Every structure is written in C-alpha cells, then in structure tokens.
C-alpha cells in the first residue's frame, strides 16, 4: 500500500499543479499524519462529537429556516406547521431542538475533561480561551434559538434575560431598548434574534477552525498530562483516532436517536407549547436545563445576603447588577483559569487533593443546576448562595492554594514508559506506525 501521506509530494501532474498553487493536498496530509498521544481515553471523544453536533445543528437549522416565519404573529403556528405538514418536519425540528441539549451535554463533558486533565495549562492557554469563546457563542445562539418558536417560555425567557442589561448603571435602559428594538420584547426582537441565530453558528464554526488550528499547533493533552517526547509516544491520528471517533459517534447517535424518537419533549418545558402571551406571566420562568446553574448564580444575589452587603452594596451596586456580574464572571473566570491553577502537574491522576476538589466542584455545578429550576424561595435561596460562593471559591481560593500545598504523585518519564510498563516487549517505535510499514 502506498503511503497515504504522499499526496503533498504527489507526482500526479494535476495534483501537483493544484498543490503548488493552493497546498490543499499538503493540508489534507496533515490530518493523516497528525501525531496524537497513543494513550487518549474515551473522554477525548467529546471534541469530535461537539463538531458533529455543530454540523447537525447547521444542517437541520438551514432547512428549518426555509419553513419558519420570523414574525411574532406567525412564528408559533409556522413551527406547528413544520411539525404537522412539512415532510419530516417533525424530525428536523426534534433533532434541532434536542440537538441543542446534546451540544451542551457533549461540550460540558469536554470542558470537565479539560478541568480534570489540566488541558488548560501551558502551552494550551489559547486553545482553552478559544474553547471558552465557543461556549459563550453557543450560549448566545442557544438563547436566541429558544426564543424563535415564540411560546410562553420563549417570550418570558427573552424578557428576563434581556432585562438583565437594564441593571447596567446609566446606560442600562438604553442598551435594553436597543436590544429589543422597541420598548418591550416584540416583533423587532424576534426578527433580530432570528437573524443572529442564523449568523452565530457560522461564527462558532470559524472559532472551531481556530480551536483546531491551536490544537494542532500544541497537540493534544492526554490522560497522563505528560507531553509527547518522540515518535514512541504517539500514533497517527488516522486511522487510530478516526476509527475510535467513529465508534464514539455511533454510541452518541444511539443516545441522541433514543431521545429524538422516543422522548422528544423530555428535556423541554411544556409551557413553550403555549403561544407567547405578553399579558400572562408563567408561574415559574425557567431557562433550559443547560442554563440552570448560571440562573441559580444570578438569582442568589438578594438584597439581604450578607455576602452581597459586605462586598457589593457599599459601592452602590444593586443586587440585580451584582447577580448579572456574577453570572458573567462564572464563565469569564475560565479565561484566567490557567493562572489560577499554578500546579506544574496537568493530570488529576497525579494530584491527590485536586482530584477531590474537582469532584466537589462538579457536584456544586450539579447542585446549582438543580437549584436553578427551583422557585426563588427558602431554603433554595440560601443553598444557592452557598453554592454560588463555593463556585467562585473553587477557582479563586481553592485552586491557587491547592497548587502550592499539594504534593503530586511522581509522574512517568514519558507516555511510552507508562503505557509499555509491565507489558509485552515490543519496541514502541516498531508498533507505533504500522500503517506506514504495511
């Protein structure tokens, strides 16, 4: 078998002619020889899955947009027409609707993978930043997409979230009215949300390209958190991780299909099947599940909370503004994470204290998610306040201190050493690239 990697230096005249002018074949080769650590586990499947969901969302979204009407009088009925009269419209819509949830599940696992294995540490800070930018863009896209069916929760969710900007001193009201395109959430709001909901996925796609570019510059982290030092530590991405990713795609699609075909409304809110009514506020306004932790953080800032009184109220910040700032800070803090966790050891496997800290942090996030769905009453408010505090204490206090006082376990000298330890005697280099020998 000829080496697939040869296209870039191909003797085929057409290939060479094109490649000399636009090195697209050299570029394609890169994806074939790109060296990946040989020890990546299944937690490393979620990046490619996120890319797949993005593609599914764009594809279904484009077709849905052909049938959807972005007008506050017609939007709700146009979605129902898609569900009833458009060929396979119900499938497109359920895939798109649940696809948003799947996107967040996959991305949250991908992020926690990064937390646990220290994927944000040098030299991967920019890669990490780009990931946080993607998360922010996803949140904006998902929020605006949820508004489009113009159900009760669409409308009131939009109202609550856009109203947050009114907490900004001096210019808050102006900004909010600018976002609305009027004096309340209405048809102009729906129109611009539709426009931006169509635009942002392509911006995400652009940032994903940068994310992969950065990844291919610094290479993948791995479960040991020890950098690749030579060919014995790596295997070519193709075919090894392509087949592993395909298998992951199969498992993922099984879960996705089970939800779409058998429980399509399980993750949704029944209220969104009621057409938007600006005069009738639903008893509980709750966002989709993937926003619940942030919603809990937002709502935990009450006027009488001691923490708010001590830290914010004396410089004239309202509880609402403090909540908004905290909500945005809960994501923005991720940008400085590489400098908060100063431990030189990446992987949580070799960090006995960090391992527990990240587990408690995960539980705290789940707890915040649970609290976000609760009414703003006791005891939920007090618990949210402690959970919110812990969220920030984890990043700003626990991680910096822990990095200093923790004694990590000894690291293996290389990936190959750890992988081959106690195993068969075959030299690592010999087994590393069988495709090239074949």
């Amino acid at each position, binding site marked *: 078998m000829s080496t697939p990697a040869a296209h870039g230096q191909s003797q085929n005249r057409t290939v060479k002619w094109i490649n000399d002018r636009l090195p697209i074949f050299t570029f394609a080769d890169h994806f074939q020889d790109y060296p990946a650590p040989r020890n990546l586990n299944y937690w490393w499947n979620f990046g490619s899955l996120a890319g797949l969901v993005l593609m599914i969302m764009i594809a279904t979204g484009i077709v849905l947009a052909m049938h959807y009407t972005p007008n506050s009088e017609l939007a709700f009925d146009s979605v129902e027409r898609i569900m009833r009269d458009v060929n396979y419209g119900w499938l497109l819509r359920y895939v798109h609707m649940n696809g948003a949830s799947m996107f967040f599940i996959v991305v949250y696992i991908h992020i926690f993978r990064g937390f646990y294995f220290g994927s944000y540490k040098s030299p991967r800070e920019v890669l990490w930043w780009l990931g946080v930018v993607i998360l922010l863009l996803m949140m904006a896209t998902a929020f605006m997409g949820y508004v489009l069916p113009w159900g009760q929760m669409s409308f009131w969710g939009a109202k609550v979230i856009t109203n947050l900007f009114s907490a900004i001193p001096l210019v808050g009201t102006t900004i909010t009215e600018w976002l609305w395109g009027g004096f309340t959430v209405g048809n102009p709001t729906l129109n611009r949300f539709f426009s931006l909901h169509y635009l942002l996925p392509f911006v995400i796609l652009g940032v994903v390209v940068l994310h992969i570019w950065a990844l291919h510059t610094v290479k993948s982290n791995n479960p040991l958190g020890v950098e690749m030092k030579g060919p014995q530590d790596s295997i070519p991405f193709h075919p090894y991780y392509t087949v592993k990713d395909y298998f992951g795609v199969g498992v993922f699609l099984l879960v996705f299909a089970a939800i779409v075909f058998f429980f399509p409304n399980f993750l949704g809110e029944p209220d969104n099947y*009621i057409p938007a009514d600006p005069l009738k506020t639903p008893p509980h306004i709750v966002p989709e599940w993937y926003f619940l932790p942030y919603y809990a953080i937002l709502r935990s800032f009450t006027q009488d909370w001691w923490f708010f009184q001590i830290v914010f109220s004396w410089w004239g910040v309202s509880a609402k503004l403090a909540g908004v700032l905290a909500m945005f800070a809960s994501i923005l803090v991720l940008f400085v994470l590489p400098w908060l966790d100063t431990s030189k050891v990446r992987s949580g496997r070799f960090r006995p204290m960090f*391992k527990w800290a990240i587990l408690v942090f995960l539980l705290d996030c789940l707890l915040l998610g649970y609290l976000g769905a609760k009414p703003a009453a006791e005891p939920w408010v007090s618990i949210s306040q402690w959970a919110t505090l812990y969220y920030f204490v984890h990043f700003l206090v626990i991680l910096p201190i822990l990095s200093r006082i923790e004694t990590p376990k000894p690291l293996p000298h290389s990936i190959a050493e750890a992988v081959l330890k106690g195993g068969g005697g075959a030299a*690592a280099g010999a087994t590393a690239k069988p495709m090239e020998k074949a």
Partner: protein
Amino acid sequence: MLKLARTFILGAGLCAAAATAALAAEGTSPPLKDGDWSFEGVFGTYDSAQLRRGFQVYQGVCSACHGLRQVSYRNLLQIGLSEAQAKQIAGEKTKKVIDDTGDVVDKPRGLADRFASPFPNDQAAKAANNGALPPDLSLITKARLGGPRYLYSLLIGYVSNEECTKAFKDFEGKPLKPADGQYCNAYFPGHILAMAPPITADGQVEYTGENAPKATVQQMAKDVSAFLMWAAEPKMEERKRLGIKVILFLLLLTGVLYGIYRKVWAGIKH
C-alpha cells in the same frame, strides 16, 4: 479513571435522589391517574377507534368553548373517518372569504381548512366565559406537565365546594372557597378554575362505533384525552416506527465500528 467516573456517577445519583424527594414533598395535588392508553411506551400506537370516540366527545362537549386550530379537517382521515364524513363535519362550519364581487361572504369549510374556533376572537371568548379564556386544545397535552394523564385526571378530578374547603388551602394556608362561577378540581394548579365540569353524566355522548364501550364519564374522559394527544402529536406513530429502524441500524453500525476499532488497534499498546 474508572473509579473516578464511578464516584462522579454516584454523586450525580445522590443529587438526583435528593431532587426527587424534594419534588415529591412540594405538590399538594394527588398523583395523576393513568388512562392505560395504547399509545404509551416505545412501541405504543394510537387506537383509532378510541380516537374516533374521543373526537365525538370533543365535538359534542369541548368544541362548544375550545378551538383546535392547528388541526385540519383532512387530518380526520388519519383516525379512520371517511372522506365523506370529514367533508360533512367540515361543511357544518363556515369561513369568511371575499367573493368575486368583493363582498365578504360565509363559505362552508372543506377538508383543507383548519378546525373552526368556537369564538371569533379572544375577547368574545372571554366575554362568553366569565372573563376566562378557554385555551385552544391543539397542543394541550404537550403544554401541560403530565400530558394526557393530567388532562384525564383533570376531567374526572372535580370535587364539591365543601370537599374543596376541607381538602385544599390557598397559598396563605387558608381553606379554599370557590366563588360563584368558580369550580374546584383536585388536579388543577391552585385548584380553582373557571371551567364547569364538562363531562358529568354517563351517556352524555352517544358512542356510535361498533363494539364501542359504554360511555361512562371515565371512558369519555379517557377517550378525549387520547384524541387530544393525537391532535397534539399526530406524527407519533411515524416517529416511533422510524425510531425503531434508526436504533436497530445504529446498533448494527456501532457494533461494526467497534469491531473495526478493535481490529485497527489490535497490537497497539495504549
């Protein structure tokens, strides 16, 4: 890593258990009643005879106040009505059209038209119903927590004013007292609603189908809930049928991909 994953799952499980316990403690309504419908479960399909009976109940009882504006008369063919029957039902209602001379005239509805709503607009509906707006029922089973179970429970869940005062309290903890034109229901959130008990007597609707069960209050409530589930999710059968094929295909594909994965990785230490 496996050990860590196990700890994560355990933690998530504990959270979920706490959440379930907290939810159970909150509600004051009794648990919803289940109608043992044929459409429940992964392989469930609609019972078209039941849907037709439910449609009779909708026509005879609900349609006096509630619309079904997302459903078209042609959709009735799906539940086994003949074209002639559906046409006749459609023709009983009219719609406003502009004729060749420019006058607005009433024209009988046809199969392609949507169900006529009982009131010309929301204001008229409210004026006729003591200020309360009877919701359109096209999506009602998807727009309420518990879906058809909620609807069924609600329809048979009315209680007398005396029982209401005894059993339920308002949010301040005082016993509930329905005012004139208000009714009490064990399953309605807040328990007080403006809808009079719609299905009150056995045989209120005359079931015409062959082998039709006796039209008891419960049976009628069950049937109309099934019909409204169909009205909200007419593509459910198609969805489940396709779903089973997709899942079987994906199982096969994933199995093959796993085999390829193992074969490609055979002999690679990782």
